[in-house]
């Protein structure tokens, strides 16, 4: 197969799968699930074939819009960054599809679910392979809608329907900035194509406008990768089925913001002020989300806040000099172990009859040994135990911050290195160790192979992924230097785990109670207030102005004036619209006649 065929098949197979399910097989859930799973396995194989391509590879573009000089194509960029990302997307995609065959087996909306997954795979692939901003924006919006559909899979639940809407709207706010940013980059460099922008960026004179442009492009990442202040949608997105959380809201889609910044790292590098802001926002998100994670009781929400925190690391890296590669490295390792943790939590939730409160679990070590061990490995990678993949990539980011002399950001990162082991130990101790605290937990038993085999594969990857980076080799590799950073992060690991163990081992309820963290710094409430103000107050004010001021002036006044002239008055007395219409037409003819001739 030549490169064009491979690349276009990777993009279009999932779309075909979604279309076939929607238009044909949606009545038979089993077949739909197999079609969707088959398509993702095929794209995984094709993605491996893609690895043979050189870094400069690209597939023949397809024209979408063309108006003179202004041209938007769907062009596929197949460099090593895209190749590596495709392995992540299709690899985890495959495992999540297989896991879902078990997890969603009895779901009434199974066909719809798999169609949604396929649509997501299509959209995500589009972001990864995009060679220009407009195409990236197109697929950016499309993953937004796939996420909306999948979060709202159980749409007859109020919480799920609300969470889906919230996710879409918060992302739209980010995309508002993203689009302005794209327009400004276009104005500054004369192009929307990444390669051409890279060539033209050196000649850009207007530093202020460039900083503004990069910050606005970054807005897109703030939305999609759930950074402060637009992070509020991601925890709510856990209303979606757990495989969705693993694939979309942990491993791939939420990493799209990081990937996008890595894709245009030359742009970020050219805008000093914007880059610093990006690093600080990433660092602040990492810290605040970690604090929030320490007080959550829903197993998926703890993981969601930890995802926010880790995404903060990756975004932070994108704003550092020479940090972009470390950020991509962490994206790669994190994708595996976070997907593992989410699918593991899915297995627990499945076994405990959809119980998600960790205080109602406990004692799962004996009941679910495979889930227990794989979850432990995932936790080890997340809290950066030396030797696991998570250790290497996190070190790379913190070292990059140190070498950039960006000590504020470095400090934020180190603080997170103390918090992550703490809240993960809390989660692990409470959910898996001790005695079962409820009947559901007591009756739990190990999930079927179709669910635990993906867990096992992911557990292997959680350890070794850092050693087999493949096309991402240039982005990061296993390397250790004894340094202040290394000492502090190892100290964080030890202190965090010990503190978590000491506080939570054997507890039946949370001994710590920090309302500020548990209530997520009250940011949701603040935003709700702002939304209320706009939606209800400003909207209704304008509505009243429209109804009682503009309408009377523009409708009633002319009507009154018209009625006071006898000509229309007589028509009104005829009371017949047809007569009016006829006379109106006649009048028009006569009027033109009189005036023109």
């Amino acid at each position, binding site marked *: 197969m030549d490169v064009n065929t491979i690349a276009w098949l990777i993009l279009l197979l999932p779309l075909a799968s979604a279309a076939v399910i929607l238009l044909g097989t949606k009545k038979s859930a089993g077949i739909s699930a197999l079609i969707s799973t088959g398509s993702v396995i095929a794209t995984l194989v094709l993605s491996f074939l893609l690895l043979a391509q050189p870094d400069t590879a690209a597939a023949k573009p397809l024209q*979408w*819009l*063309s*108006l*003179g000089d202004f041209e938007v194509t769907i062009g596929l960029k197949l460099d090593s960054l895209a190749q590596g990302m495709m392995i992540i997307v299709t690899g985890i995609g495959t495992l999540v599809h297989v896991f879902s065959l078990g997890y969603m087996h009895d779901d009434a909306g199974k066909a719809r679910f798999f169609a949604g997954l396929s649509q997501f795979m299509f959209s995500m692939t589009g972001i990864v392979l995009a060679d220009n901003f407009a195409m990236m*924006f*197109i697929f950016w*919006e*499309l993953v937004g*809608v796939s996420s909306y559909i999948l979060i*709202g899979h159980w*749409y*007859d*639940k*109020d919480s799920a*329907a*609300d969470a*889906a*809407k919230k996710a*879409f*709207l918060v992302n*739209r706010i980010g*995309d*508002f900035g993203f*689009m*302005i940013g794209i*327009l*400004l980059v276009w*104005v*500054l460099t*004369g192009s929307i194509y990444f390669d051409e922008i890279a060539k033209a960026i050196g000649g850009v004179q*207007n530093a202020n406008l460039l900083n503004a442009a990069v910050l606005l492009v970054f807005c897109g990442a703030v939305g999609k990768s759930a950074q402060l202040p637009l992070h509020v949608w991601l925890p709510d997105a856990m209303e979606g089925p757990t495989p969705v959380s693993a694939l979309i809201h942990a491993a791939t889609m939420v990493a799209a913001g990081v990937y996008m910044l890595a894709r245009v790292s030359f742009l970020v590098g050219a805008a000093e002020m914007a880059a610093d802001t990006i690093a600080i926002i990433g660092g602040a998100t990492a810290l605040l989300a970690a604090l929030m994670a320490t007080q959550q009781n829903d197993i998926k929400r703890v993981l969601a806040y930890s995802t926010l925190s880790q995404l903060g690391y990756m975004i932070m890296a994108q704003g550092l000099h020479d940090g972009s590669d470390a950020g991509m490295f962490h994206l790669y390792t994190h994708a595996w172990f976070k997907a593992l943790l989410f699918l593991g939590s899915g297995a627990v939730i499945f076994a405990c009859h959809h119980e998600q409160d960790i205080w109602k679990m406990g004692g799962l070590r004996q009941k679910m040994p495979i889930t227990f061990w794989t979850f432990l490995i995932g936790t080890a990678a997340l809290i950066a135990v030396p030797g696991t993949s998570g250790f290497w990539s996190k070190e790379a980011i913190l070292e990059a911050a140190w070498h950039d002399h960006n000590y504020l950001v470095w400090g934020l990162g180190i603080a997170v290195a103390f918090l992550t082991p703490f809240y993960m130990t809390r989660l692990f101790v409470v959910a898996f160790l001790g005695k079962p605290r409820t009947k559901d937990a007591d009756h739990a038993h190990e999930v079927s192979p179709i669910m635990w085999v993906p867990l096992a594969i992911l557990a292997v990857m959680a350890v070794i992924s850092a050693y087999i980076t493949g096309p991402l080799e240039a982005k990061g590799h296993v390397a250790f230097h004894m340094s202040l950073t290394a000492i502090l992060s190892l100290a964080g690991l030890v202190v965090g785990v010990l503190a978590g163990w000491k506080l939570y081992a054997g507890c039946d309820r949370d001994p710590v109670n920090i309302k500020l963290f548990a209530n997520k710094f009250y940011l949701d409430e603040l935003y709700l207030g702002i939304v209320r103000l706009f*939606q*209800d107050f400003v*909207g*209704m004010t*304008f*509505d009243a102005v*429209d109804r009682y001021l*503009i*309408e009377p*002036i*523009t*409708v009633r006044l*002319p*009507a009154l004036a*018209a009625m006071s002239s006898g000509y*229309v008055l007589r028509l009104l007395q005829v009371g017949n*619209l*047809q007569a*009016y*219409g006829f006379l*109106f*037409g006649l009048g*028009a003819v006569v*009027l*033109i*006649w009189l005036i*023109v*001739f």
Partner: protein
Amino acid sequence: MTLVEFIVFAPLLAVLAILFGSPARATAIVAAVANLAAAGLMTLRFPVEVESKGQVIFASSRNLLASPNLNLAFGLDGISLVLVILTVLVTLAAVWASPAEGRIKGNVKLYYSSSLLIASGALGAFCATDLFFFYAFHELALIPTFLMIGIFGSGENRKRTAWTITIFLGVGSLILLAGLIALLVETGGKSFAFADLYAVGDKIPADAQKNIYLILLIGFGILVSLFPFHSWAPPAYAQAPTPVAMLHAGVLKKFGLYGLIRVAMPLLPEGAAHWQTLLLVLLLGNILILGLVTIAQRRLDTLLGYSSVMHMGYVFLGIASGNTIGLHGAVLLMFAHGISIALLFALAGAVRERMGTLDMDELGGGLAKKAPALGLLFGFAAFASIGLPGFANFAAEVMVFFGSFQPILETKKLGALQWAGILSLWGVVISAVYMLRAYRKIFKGPLTDKDAKAGIADLTLTERAPALLLIVALMAVGFVPGLLLKYLTPTLEAIAMSLKG
């Protein structure tokens, strides 16, 4: 008889047939299908390379009066062609949708005849190459619009609403008439033909251009519900019977925009440049102020009415930018918006037929459980209307925004047009808020009032047909915008050139 004459008069013939006893619904559908076929044929035969402005295809002319030289003249340029395609698609969907509505109020003949008259009037206005008939056909379409709202409308106030829109659009039409007459006086008044007007149009003095353009902007603006002349639209659409809401909001309202692009801008380029800032301010009123008003709506029908008014702001933004990209965006958005709003009104009509109300609090939630197909199609329509990629609306809006930034590619300094573009982009968030909120409230969440909703049936296959027709059209153009853009380019490039001076 040319294809264009056929397409304009076929609905009128169908009206005659209905008056003489032909079954109303079947006749209307046959006429609409015939028109769709004719439009398809015209599209296939339409040459892509039209040389200069004023050149039209399938031209025909029948002299009605020797002096003054009045001709029933038709012909198509690229813009007309796109609007004709829009009209025939929406017409078919409109006469197909909601068969029950006409039956309930009796007088099925009037119900379908009026719809066909509106279609014929709109087609005549879009195809006329003569100023007199350009104006007269639009008036022809307005009369049945008023009638239908008064007779078949829903709600207590339908008579009052019918009068409001009659007087309001009547005043708008008169202002427009005054502007057109002034235009004729300035061009010598010898001929109504577009071609003759274009030929002498360059010579209109700058002052006269400014004055006349303002009059035309207000006249056309009232017809398009440009802020603050919009108050007639939301109640009218809310109370209009389904096919009228579809045809007026979807098709007939585009007459004002068409007039600005086809008549006002090429003949009065200096006027267009002079009033650009005013237009920018007003269109921001449409997008931001009326966008927020849309959010405040509690009823789906007024919400759709306001949203339709709001989206006109983007078309005006494309017109205000005046360059090739922006104008393409504007015309494509006229098409996309026309289809998507017609689709939304058709589906809202189906909801009203089932539930007896469109008040979102009374509707409760969870309708998608009882009517999954209706829910799915409404979802498509909602996402089309908020400009999701894959639908024509997205392609059009993207072009409008790129068009608003195109003028500063050289200077790289933000001006009024770019700031208007940035502020308008916020409207993309606003429209997502109100559409998803409505979708969530009506279709999602747990099923409320289970007993009351027990008898609710999903859309039948016949009922799905018009919605599918419109969705396929939106997606075809959304995936391949070039399908329509290629016809527009020659005409719009010429207009953009004339605006540059």
